[in-house]
């Protein structure tokens, strides 16, 4: 089975993140780039499926040159090869444009199963897997808390607020997985060494048969007009519990009409 796992490099969530004044895009330069944490579950699921069903795992990532660090890390977890979609014209693409480039790259690369994380921790739109399924015209088996494959049938547990739905579709298909679906493996030393030799193919817009007028900041269908740091919240009242902390909290809640 030809499994493609889509991976995004994002700014480290443990540090302060912001946008770039001027073009209002995500500041990726001044912060360390890491694999989107939620994509680690997608990589693990892809590897598990390949181990169980046989097949190959390809990492697909769109991003600037810096994204190659995250691609190597994904390869060191055990993926077989990678495709890096890289083109200056893609910078500042919104979700609609990103889904276009990824869908076109998937057509070039070929796939039986595409696996995404549920969202990225930077933009957090959560729309790209659904958009890619729509563009490719294949089943959208998203927000999976469990994935089972039997022949050409894929069955997932789709996480819902009150429980889950059992959803079935046929390959080729797009799957997204939720946090905690599995326990992502750590790269081993051997894996890290092996990753250095694994093939990484680069694809430009020309390879995707897209022209520069269909992607990038200037052509985006949505635009960030302005941004500002959230003003700090007004300092609150902090009391030390001296046997009456619970009562004081209750008084506060009563003053604010919560009780």
């Amino acid at each position: 089975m030809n499994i493609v796992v889509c991976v995004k490099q994002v700014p480290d969530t443990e540090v302060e993140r912001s946008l770039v004044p001027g073009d209002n895009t995500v500041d990726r330069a001044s912060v360390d780039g890491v694999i989107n944490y939620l994509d680690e579950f997608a990589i693990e699921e892809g590897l598990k499926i390949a181990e169980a069903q046989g097949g190959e795992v390809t990492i697909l990532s769109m991003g600037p040159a810096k994204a190659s660090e995250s691609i190597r890390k994904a390869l060191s977890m055990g993926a077989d090869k990678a495709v890096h979609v890289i083109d200056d014209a893609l910078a500042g693409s919104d979700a609609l444009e990103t889904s276009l480039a990824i869908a076109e790259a998937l057509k070039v690369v070929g796939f039986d199963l595409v696996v995404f994380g549920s969202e990225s921790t930077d933009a957090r739109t959560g729309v790209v897997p659904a958009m890619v399924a729509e563009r490719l015209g294949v089943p959208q088996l998203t927000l999976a808390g469990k994935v089972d494959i039997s022949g050409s049938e894929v069955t997932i547990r789709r996480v819902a607020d009150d429980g889950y739905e059992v959803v079935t579709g046929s390959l080729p298909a797009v799957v997204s997985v939720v946090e905690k679906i599995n326990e992502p493996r750590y790269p081993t030393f051997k894996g890290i060494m092996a990753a250095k030799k694994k093939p990484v193919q680069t694809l430009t817009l020309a390879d995707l048969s897209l022209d520069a007028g269909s992607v990038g900041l200037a052509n985006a269908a949505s635009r960030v007009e302005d941004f500002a740091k959230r003003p700090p919240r007004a300092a609150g009242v902090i009391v030390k519990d001296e046997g009456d902390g619970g009562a004081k909290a209750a008084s506060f809640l009563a003053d604010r009409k919560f009780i």
Partner: protein
Amino acid sequence: MAEVLVLAEHTADGEVKKVTLELLSAARRLGEPSVVWTGPGADAAQPRLAEYGAAKVYVADSPDFAGYVVAPTAELLASLVASASPAAVLIAGTTEGKEIAGRLAVKTGSGVLTDAVDVTEAGGAPVGEHANFGGAVIVHATVQTGTPIIAVRPNSVAAEPSPAAAAVEAVAFTASDAAKTAKITEHVVAEASERPELSEASIVVSGGRGTGSADGFGIIEQLADSLGAAVGASRAVVDAGWYPHAFQVGQTGKTVSPQLYMAVGISGAIQHRAGMQTSKTIVAVNKDAEAPIFEIADFGVVGDLFTVVPQLIEEIGKRKQI
């Protein structure tokens, strides 16, 4: 005035979710709201939709909406966008709502704004306000192409009554084969809970590492129940297996914006704050006076949660009897 489509979130028997009423209030700022109702239950809901300002209600009662993952809903909305030329489409910013918005954006070649915490109008076009990077940065965004599609975070816009006709218009709809590739064969309700849904609740009580164990976490449920609140949990609690992942609040869990958020035994690391710092009022209980949660709390108690919380529950009980 231009129509604004509002996709209703509801139960099968016609109970309208609160977020739908919030969307109606937001839609009125942009034009005349038309609710889009998928599946059964519209008759029961009509009075409530009228009360909150729906001028029109498009009703497409087809089993395809419950039978297949999101694609039929996106297809219906796309056909209504074509026929009604709305000024915007508003959808609940839930995980499923965002997926519908995404597919609709592709179908109509439109820009989509996700997770708006407010919607305003400027120069005849909608502007979405967003709390990005876990609420650290406030962003205003617009749509440049097509019909603006905006997914609005539940609990962000106040639902206000504004009586209107809510004239029902039946829409014939059958999903195309292309929209029927991901079939829902079963809906399993995990556990019947009396508590409100986490993303919709006006009060959320969350517990963290300080609860110490799955048993210790029980005190969070007790406090939540005394307030009629939803229960949330920090990532540490979920990672430790003390509470299910579905209740995780944070950067990679649910993002909530209740009227009152109580963080109990939660230090308030960036990962957690990302999921709750747009809450209107924040109360924290933590034994560490240096915990970052106190920087954003409106009221904080530095103390042992196992003495503070039982006293709080008792006080809440007393005040209820008055």
